[in-house]
């Protein structure tokens, strides 16, 4: 039924309100096949609502197509091609690992049991264990093994590594990239642990109070944003170039620039690639002060107008 090439996810004016609380305030979104999009935002920004809309778990206003289908009205068909991990530890606690494999194999046409077994063989998870007997990290491994064995076109991950230690988190994204991802699949992931996904993502989206505040590919990210550790004598000159954020590090100032001349900046100090986390802080603090009119004096001087 999908003849022409189309985006995996296409949204126009996506809106969702719970009573008077607006969770999504008109989002436009286009995710092409083969991308790994990171949806980053503070708590309550609307990330989970956006994902729930994409997964047909919540109703919405506006236009939304996932793999060419309306997720709200065509959810049953859509779930053949989409898989998701909605949170850490949503696997039923009473089920045994073998039962879980039997069940998914029994209901999912695209599930490859042999693949799941080989992923599990790399872990210490016992086939006879119940989920409640596994540690949180092992439950995440188990869920990932199931999901990676499903040949889905779109994989949605909502905080898949929340509360896991650094080893499990690193391993989670490593297996996802090495054993699962290829360019016919699309992954959308939300997380607070931005440092770990920086080299995983192909696209980046910041969302705050139901609106998209930044949207770019990682190539764009690398070419647009630059960070300079400014030597004290150049701080005033550097500030004149309107950095979008400034933070002190060991008594020196680190300035973050958007669309700046790298050669010019190199004269002020060490130029480097910013982390997503730093850009996130910069964009969010600017964004937070923008809509509600704060007292003028309290507004930081580096805020761009």
């Amino acid at each position: 039924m999908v003849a022409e090439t189309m985006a995996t996810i296409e949204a126009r004016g996506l809106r969702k309100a719970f009573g008077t609380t607006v969770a999504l305030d008109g989002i436009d979104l286009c995710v092409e096949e083969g991308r790994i999009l990171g949806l980053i935002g503070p708590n309550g920004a609307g990330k989970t609502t956006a994902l729930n809309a994409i997964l047909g778990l919540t109703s919405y206003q506006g236009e939304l197509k996932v793999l060419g289908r309306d997720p709200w009205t065509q959810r049953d068909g859509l779930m053949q091609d989409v898989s998701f991990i909605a949170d850490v530890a949503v696997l039923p606690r009473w089920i045994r690992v073998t039962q879980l494999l039997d069940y998914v194999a029994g209901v999912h046409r695209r599930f490859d049991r042999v693949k799941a077994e080989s992923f599990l063989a790399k872990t210490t998870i016992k086939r006879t264990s119940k989920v409640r007997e596994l540690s949180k990290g092992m439950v995440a491994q188990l869920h990932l093994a199931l999901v990676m064995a499903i040949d889905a076109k779109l994989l949605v991950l909502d905080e898949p590594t929340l509360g896991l230690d650094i080893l499990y988190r690193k391993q989670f994204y490593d297996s996802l990239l090495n054993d699962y991802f290829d360019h016919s699949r699309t992954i959308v992931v939300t997380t607070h642990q931005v440092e770990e996904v920086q080299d995983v993502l192909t696209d980046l989206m910041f969302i705050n109070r139901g609106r998209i505040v930044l949207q770019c590919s990682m190539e764009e990210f690398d070419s647009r944003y630059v960070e300079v550790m400014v030597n004290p004598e150049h701080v005033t000159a550097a500030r004149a170039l309107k950095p979008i954020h400034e933070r002190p590090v060991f008594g020196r100032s680190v300035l973050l620039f958007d669309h700046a001349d790298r050669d010019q900046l190199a004269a002020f100090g060490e130029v480097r690639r910013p982390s997503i986390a730093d850009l996130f802080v910069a964009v969010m603090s600017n964004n937070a002060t923008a809509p509600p009119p704060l007292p003028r004096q309290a507004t930081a001087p580096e805020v761009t107008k």
Partner: protein
Amino acid sequence: MNTQSDNTPESSEVNDPAYSRSSTQPFFWSVRRELWENRSIYVAPLIVAAVVLFGSLVGSFHLPDRRRLAMALDPAQRRAAIELPYDIAAMIIILTAFVVGVFYCLDALYGERRERSILFWKSLPVSDLTTVLSKATIPLVVLPLIVFLIIVATQFSMMLISSAALMPSGLAGTTWVNFNLFQQSLILLYSLIVIALWHAPIYGWALLISGWARRATFLWAVLPLLAIGVLEKIAFDTTHFVSMLKDRVFGAGDTAFAFQPHHGVAIDSLLQLTPGRYLATPGLWMGLIVAAALVAAAVRLRRYRGPI
């Protein structure tokens, strides 16, 4: 009972050899899943059966005396006296299954929301219709079948115990003459179908409440009904609602059997089964319509309400 959407392969993949080998059976696996999670479905009736058997083992010491007394009665009364323990055993196990079924339904759509595993179940291509129907199948089909097998096995074991106990006094044959296990099994099967159909709206109500209530499903299921009954009594000094509920819980047999005068509730002849009269009871069909509506509402609720 599988829904279209679960089994219809997406057109683009129909000819893909990698997928054609694996045929999925969402409904079958959903029912199995329920049995994995809720072992009380068969464990509870089994425990009750074990208790019954233990009781009849202990009671078998006095059996020869009781049987001699029974043999002095007229044939009909004798039969009734000999059948009585078997009927009691069946009724206790059926009652257990009813309680298990109601509590199963009250948790069926609530437990998955409480432990958030609904987010996992909903990530698989199993429609809400399939899921809810598989859950409704447990009290309406699976439990009656399990109960049937357990009761027949229990009654057969009781017959063996009584034969062994009566052997020395030469009365062992009287059990087999007066209790026809094959015929009683047919009557039991009929009774279980009658009861399941009659109770369908009760299970449907419990399912809907379990899909709707955020906590305390039992109270939400019972208190509103109680409140209506009390309100009716106070406002109109009538008890129509309460007697309707009572009829729904206990009235399954009223039109399904022809009880004999002076014979209590014992049914020992196929002639006492009146399926025609039962099928002509408006209450049966009204109950089934209400049950279908409640299950449909539970499906819609699971499909269209926020997942938790």
